[in-house]
């Protein structure tokens, strides 16, 4: 059984159809890159998988581990192992990062019928992960993402990914707003999480990110559909020839 199976997905936002019958199959252990021009529906796909309000699925289905993902609340999806790393992680003043991490982790564990983490175990785990991502301790005491730089926000997303141990990670434009050093740290963090039980969907505009997170499969999206799939060579070809050919094809 595939980990994620998107079948003939049609999605509307207000009166406009954004996805027009999208198919995507992702198996455990695989890394998929989704590339495409602005407005091709990449972010819409990631939002619909995570359960963001405001999108209407008019046809098709999404199965996650064989279950109907679209029937679940966003928090149920998280507890089942879906993780969306946000393109623009929000700032939440007044909610300390540590408190947020513990509340979220324990909410997921509780939903799965697992024991909540004890405080010492939790702290140990957070400190280990934070250290590997070069996240200073005082950042964890601040409000969630408040006053964080772009790079720090993305590292905070990777920190959560490491902490929550999801089986499907969707990275939405993780490279946007990052310089090369920040990108390398974040990508190293993501690569450390690659495992046979876990799949990743890397949404990106540019081939650059894929030098750091090397995909098994590359899909090109245009006008709400996957128009071409291939291996990492496809990303290099796109870098050379651009998206225009697919715009015409679609």
């Amino acid at each position, binding site marked *: 059984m595939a980990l994620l199976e998107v079948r003939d997905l049609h999605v509307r936002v207000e009166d406009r159809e954004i996805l027009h019958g999208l198919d995507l199959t992702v198996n455990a252990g695989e890394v998929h890159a989704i590339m495409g021009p602005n407005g091709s529906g990449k972010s819409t796909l990631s939002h619909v998988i995570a359960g963001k309000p405001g999108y209407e699925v008019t046809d098709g289905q999404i199965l996650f581990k064989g279950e109907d993902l679209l029937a679940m*609340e966003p*928090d149920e999806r998280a507890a089942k192992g879906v993780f969306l790393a946000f393109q623009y992680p929000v700032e*939440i003043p007044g909610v300390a990062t540590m408190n947020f991490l513990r509340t979220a982790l324990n909410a997921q564990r509780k939903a799965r019928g697992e024991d909540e983490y004890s405080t010492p175990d939790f702290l140990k785990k957070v400190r280990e992960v934070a250290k590997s991502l070069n996240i200073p301790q005082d950042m964890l005491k601040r409000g969630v993402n408040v006053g964080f730089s772009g790079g720090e926000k993305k590292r905070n997303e990777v920190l959560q990914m490491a902490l929550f141990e999801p089986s499907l990670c969707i990275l939405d434009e993780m490279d946007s707003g990052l310089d090369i050093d920040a990108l390398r740290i974040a990508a190293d963090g993501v690569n450390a999480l690659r495992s046979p039980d876990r799949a990743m969907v890397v949404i990106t505009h540019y081939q650059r990110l894929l030098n750091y997170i090397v995909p098994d499969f590359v899909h090109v999206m245009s006008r709400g559909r996957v128009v071409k799939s291939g291996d990492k060579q496809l990303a290099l070809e796109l870098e050379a020839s651009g998206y225009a050919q697919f715009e015409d094809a679609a």
Partner: protein
Amino acid sequence: MNLVLAKTDTERAVSNVFATARDRLPGAGEVAEARRRAFEAYERAGLPHRRIEEWKYTDLRALMREVAPLAGRPDAAAITRAKAALELVAVDGAAKLVLVDGVFVPELSGIAELGAGISVRTLREILENGANDARSDLLLTSTTDAVISLNTAMVTDGVVISVADGTALSRPIQIVHVATASSASAFTRSHVKLGKAARATFIESFVAAEGASAYQANDAVILWVGDGAELSHLRVVADAADAVNISSGIVTVGAKAKLNLFNMTRGGAVSRYQVFITLAGEGSDLSVNGINLLKDKQHGDTTLVVDHAVPHCTSRENFRAVVDDRGHSVFQGRIIVRPDAQKTDGKMMTRALLLSDEAEADNKPELEIFADDVTCGHGATSGALDESLLFYLRARGLCEKDAQALLIQAFLGEAIEEIADESLREFVMAQAERWLEVRR
């Protein structure tokens, strides 16, 4: 139209309530005369209504409907019920002074716990037996506010506290008002006077005994913070869901003093806390903050007047309201800077969070500045919870109510963190969490 002649049923009821209660009100002679004058003043104004600017959003003629008769003296059974209710607003280590249905109850109170340097007497005792000058002082107020006049006319009891110069109280003083009688009213007044360089924490709480409903509380607190003194003052209104609570504070702050005041309203059908603060000595710091937690059809009003009468004082006001269902929150804050009050530094912020489409918040900040070398500012916002923050939290595994609760706590935290005393801060956060718990 002659408003004096156009009396409502409510006002006629008040007249009757005063007439029938008169013989039971403590104090004769000058005191009785002061009451009579106060009642006349009240009758001239009538119950505050929407055409009186200060009461525009809290029309008592519409909201109170009828004035309940004065509550009787609590019997042994009532005192037992009151005792059980004290737990709901218990603050660790506080020495309690308990007023049940407007009557001081020594057996529930811990005056002896307060130690040296403090004197506590009941208002009733002074009105009945005190020297003339002491008695007339107690009923004097310079305000023309009708509900305070009514309080003067009808007050049955309260506590009169004096903290000696240089005394630092080792434990908080807590006045707890407990209502046990239903469809009855209680009128209380307390005086708290901090001597020079004294330090104290003063809490006032309102709570209902089990089964008490539809009662009305009218309370007044007169506070003096002496030169160089520091006072933390916390109020917690946790009345029954159908109760009315109209409370007034009259505060005078001396020189180089600090006052940290926090008002929390989480109960009552109709509540208003109106506080008039005069900064009367130079170099003082004032911090006035509060939260209103309102749901169902609750109406909660905080009205604040800060009068910078002298130069070189700082005032900070930070208020938050969380309003659910058809709740209605009102915040009115006026900062007056007198012509002589140069170098005044005043800032006021009020924000309301509306959790339902029918929730309402009225924020009215006002600055009246007559000096030219001051720093003053105010701000007001109202809005719903941020959908993008909610989705972020839900995408991380928090259910809708938990995600909301976390954001509401953070919102309230912006005001709660202004409470200087850490244990009081934790107490207020716990009370807020209890409110959120019920919401879930």
